[in-house]
């Protein structure tokens, strides 16, 4: 057994898992505030990455400006989507809302294909290229810096949840909408806020994913892994998304390295089924008590 190889693979997995955790955080944010299972999360990542592509490659803006612009565009889109498609579905069955997000995902894929065609594209290189060594193990710089960004953003989000007024309002709404409303929190605005923040996070994750593996209109498949992550972690648990994100990232890396690329999704989904059979509400999710 080659321990160095295992270590390197694990590091790459943790790096990739950081992005899962980030996207999972975006997902959980939406779920906690609005109880919407957002299957379009992968497509939101994709839109963020394409917005960056348009600004950085199409208009030749400097990379930092392009990143900020992409995040802004994505955030606005998130707000618009919430207002136009999700708000009217308030109070409908969760399945219907879920299907609305499926439809939204399809629309986003179509729009991207219409503008940029379905071909795979490369984002301009903007991540430092010197190889990075942790001890003896080599880590791809792209994965390393993406992981750093993910950790940073997760920390910022957690701080926002903890201390910022908006974050507190978000948590209050997640706990009890009616009570939050009675305390003067503008719940509809919290809904918008959750989608805007989540879309912004998704854009960052999308840019990072695109920088590592290139962008294409089928990037949304990343969303499936994110879905597995949040379900394994528990839909309404931030901690769950982070832990499960790293876990799934490492598992995928191991499966990819030792079994072959086609086993990646298989392994993650088997883990998903196994976890659901034992803990149907995920590792850290709140167990819902059903009343008649």
């Amino acid at each position, binding site marked *: 057994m080659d321990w160095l190889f295992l270590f390197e693979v694990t590091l790459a997995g943790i790096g990739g898992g950081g992005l899962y955790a980030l996207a999972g955080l975006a997902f959980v944010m939406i779920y906690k505030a609005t109880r919407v*299972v957002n299957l379009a999360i992968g497509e939101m990542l994709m839109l963020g990455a394409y917005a960056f592509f348009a600004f950085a490659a199409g208009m030749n803006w400097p990379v930092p400006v392009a990143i900020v612009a992409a995040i802004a565009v994505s955030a606005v889109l998130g707000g618009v989507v919430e207002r136009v*498609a999700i708000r*009217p*579905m308030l109070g*409908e069955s*969760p*399945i*219907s809302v*879920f*299907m*609305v997000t*499926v*439809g*939204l*995902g*399809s*629309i*986003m*894929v*179509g*729009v991207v*294909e*219409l503008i940029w*065609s*379905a071909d795979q594209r490369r984002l301009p290189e903007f991540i430092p290229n010197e190889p990075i060594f942790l001890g003896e193990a080599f880590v791809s710089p792209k994965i390393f810096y993406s992981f750093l960004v993910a950790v940073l953003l997760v920390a910022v989000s957690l701080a926002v949840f903890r201390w910022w007024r908006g974050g507190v309002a978000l948590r209050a709404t997640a706990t009890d909408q009616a009570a939050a409303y009675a305390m003067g929190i503008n719940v509809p605005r919290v809904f918008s806020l959750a989608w805007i923040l989540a879309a912004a996070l998704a854009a960052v994750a999308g840019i990072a994913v695109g920088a590592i593996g290139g962008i294409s209109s089928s990037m949304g498949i990343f969303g*499936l892994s994110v*879905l*597995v992550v949040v*379900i394994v972690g528990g839909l309404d648990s931030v901690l769950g998304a982070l832990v499960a994100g790293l876990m799934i990232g490492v598992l995928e890396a191991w499966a990819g390295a030792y079994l072959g690329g*086609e086993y990646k*999704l*298989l392994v993650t*989904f*088997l883990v*998903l*089924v196994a976890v*659901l*059979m034992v803990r*149907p*509400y995920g590792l850290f999710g709140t167990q819902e008590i*059903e009343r*008649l």
Partner: protein
Amino acid sequence: MRIATAKESYQLDEALFDSATQRTWAVLLGVALVLYPFLASDYWLYLACLVSIHVASATGLNILTGYTGLVSLGQAAFMGLGAYTVAVLEHYFGTMFLFNLLAGGVVAMLGGIVVGIPSLRVKGLYLAIVTIAASFLAHFLFVNSGFTGGTGGMTVPPAQVFGLALDTSFRIYWLIVPVTVLMVLGAANLFRTRIGRAFIAIRDRDISAEVLGIPLLRYKLLSFGLSSFYAGVAGGLWAYFFRVVTPESFPLIMSIFFLAAIIVGGMGSILGGILGAIFMTMVPEVLRIMVGWLPIEGDTLQYVAPVRTIVFGLLIVGFLIFEPHGLAEVWRRVRRFFHLWPFRN
């Protein structure tokens, strides 16, 4: 205005076609289905067969999702199971097509029951995700089973009826459409029985249903089994129709297509499943024709696929927001208009 529909017994009230008007229309529809292949061109025959396969599969999904309330995103995978069963049986054993179709249905049914096992513990969206997992598992099996031809898939010889090969759209029409009609009638009748009513009770409130004495596990698995049986037979028809089966033939988007079809058509309504499947199959074709009319220079075909994807999404979102009960509700509204015609206009 509708008259002379007084019902004198429960039997009459429960009948599948409960008025002379309905019976007339049903007969007319039957005649139209018989005459259709003699009048339609090859392209329209092809579409009719495709629509018919989709109707069969969507009806199956409607039993599970529309009537039992269990959301499944694995319908395409079960169709794949059916299609591969047919392909394998034809390839290695050369058995009769009816037997193959049934076997396809049964294999898919067993698959469905296995996938349904978590449904007692896992509900709602979690269950939908489990079925996604099942579809990836199925895809993996199709690629790596060894006897299924790997990524290249398998070719299927045409179905043989008394030495006659069903190798044209005109001939296969006579296999696909009757089978679909039978399956749809079967589903419609199912909801006049104890089993069907149990499904509906589970959909409305599963805990209450259990309190009423409906064994949840058995009926949920039964629903999964029936639904996948429909998918399996539809998949078998699909295999005989396209005559080549690959792992990529049954992607996740196809499962979403069927779910979209019953949403657009109307969940929990047999008519809805039919209308939805017809509508969702025809829209891309209509789009293709319409894009051809557009005054755009150059190659317009490259816009067709993205526009289809967008319209597909718009239809799902639009119907859910503006017409959540689907086309079946529109149909009912039109019918009500005629029933009440001189009095309300």
